[in-house]
């Protein structure tokens, strides 16, 4: 998008390297590589599972971590629909 050339012009040298779009892209790429490596590492270490169930499947922690987080986020979202109130609710 047009953001990339604009920002250095508006604030030359002030834009922190961490928030520059090209660096954010690089961070996504490197993070993906690290994620991949943690899964590949399981080939060498073996599973940490103990119970002989899904916990011993290859890549279980990755999938389990990801899915349980999704469940918690959406669970919270549903609960929020019922329980959220304006933050001055108790002040009134």
């Amino acid at each position, binding site marked *: 998008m047009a953001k990339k050339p604009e920002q250095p012009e508006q604030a030359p040298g002030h834009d922190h390297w961490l928030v520059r779009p090209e660096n954010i892209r690089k961070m996504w790429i490197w993070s993906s590589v690290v994620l991949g490596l943690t899964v590949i590492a399981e080939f060498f270490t073996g599973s940490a599972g103990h119970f002989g169930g899904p916990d011993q499947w290859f890549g279980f922690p990755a999938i389990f*971590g990801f899915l*349980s987080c999704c469940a918690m986020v959406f669970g919270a979202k549903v609960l929020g629909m019922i329980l959220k109130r*304006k*933050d001055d609710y108790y002040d009134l």
Partner: protein
Amino acid sequence: MIFESFPPALILLTAALLAVIARPNARAIILLVAPLITLWAIWSLPEGVLLTTRFLGYPIEPLEVTPVRRMFATVFTIMAFAGALFSFRTAKTAELGAAFAYASGAVGVSFAGDLISLFIWWEMMAIFSTIVIWCGGTEASRRAGIRYAMMHILSGVLLKIGIEGVYVHTGSLDIVAMQALNLNIFALQPIDIDIWLLLAGVLINAAAPPFSAWLPDAYPETSPTGAVFLSAFTTKTAVLALILLFPGQQVLIWVGLYMVFYGIIMALLENDARRILAYSIINQVGFMVTAVGIGTELALNGAALHAFAHIIYKALLLMSAGVVMYRTGLRRCTDLGGLFRTMPVTCICGIIGALAISSFPLTSGYTTKTMISVAAEHEHLVFVWYMLAAASAGVFLHAGIKFPWFVFFQKDSGLRPKDAPWNMAAAMIFFAFLCIALGVYPDPLYAMLPNHAVVPVYKPEKLVFYLQLLLFSGLAFFLLLDYMKRTNTITLDLDWFWRVAIFNAGNWVFDQTTRIRGGMEKAFVGWLKSKEETIEDLSERDGFILRATSATGLGALYVMILLTLYVFVYYLE
């Protein structure tokens, strides 16, 4: 040795008194030196019951030392030191004094060898922690403090009745593991009721359901420094009490798991950065409560270790949030963001705390919390193990990434506050150092434990397991970021029932009785008129109620009863 039978809590208590009357420079020295002397005192104590005396005719043992008690006392004292370093230049004198008296209560509870000593120190903690909350100085903190005090009075009352019952029915005040809870409510013996009451009193202090809401209600309303002290003591003394009194009570597994997920879900919905951290205290205490419920030696050690590590990283997180609040006056995620530019020290220390709470390898959370999962594994508690794994992922989500992301990164809020003052930075760096040191080299911590019953956590497959679990949770966070946009909202909790429902019900009853009284008055006046007699005529009659005289004492009593009722109803909200 001077300190062989001297209660270390008294050193902190003396420091608290002196700090209030001393000049500012002397106060700083007192607050920083007293914890060091206390630490020395704690480690000079041999193991065993070191002090026995009588209190109101009851035999008490105010000083009993065991490895796990010493471990808790040690971390409470380290906390007092770092808290003092963090706050001595900015906090009110009253807050510092109260915080130290509060810390002394925690050390006192740690070494309390009987239930009466435990109760006394615990009540002292309740009083002084309330003062710390009030030192927030706002109307919100005043109200939150009153609600907090009421909850702890309730806990104290339950505890007191339980203690009296235990003494009456067993003849002993010793702090020992209680017999198994009787879950059949139709066949309760008196002693069962005592134990349930005792457990309820302790669990309220641990912020267990249904009374979890006092914690996220009160802690965020304190001053930037107050929350740092509060995060450490009350819930963790409750964990120690659970370890000593209720090891292996299975019901605690379920209470703990509820707390773990309650903390995560509520924190995910929360906008206030300090309240996010408050919810995550409940989440972390949930891990410890679950461990106590599992009850094996490894699990109990895991609970104690995790409490030790937790006090340090949680205080670190609240220090980081406290600096942000001190510099900007803001707490809401929607107002913050992008602070990493000008607050690198606060940001990095906050991230280290966040990694530690998430049990990231090489941090203290990893070397301690892993013990609890392994304990579940050894006991073949399959469901509990899966839940703990999901919860570990959830911790990274709600505290590990959410807190630093929304406060320090997220968007550019335009705020460019200065970084932490030197003393706050020093306290944060000290605790950040401990978080990493205990993660890299946990042996000194393990050595404090009885029988050194721990398992090695740095196995390659365990490392890979946790790295996958956590990093993919991180992926979920960034992919689902749109679903986690913060709004200016709060989330209702069970305290709604006493803050709104009971309060409104009380008002309704009051309105109805007023109406009924109005109706009766009207009817009475109508009746009088029908008799064609006026009040004046009636009052002429001898002995009629309107001219009868009665003692003023009785009137005063009525007024007092009414006022008490009024105060009670008023304090409900």
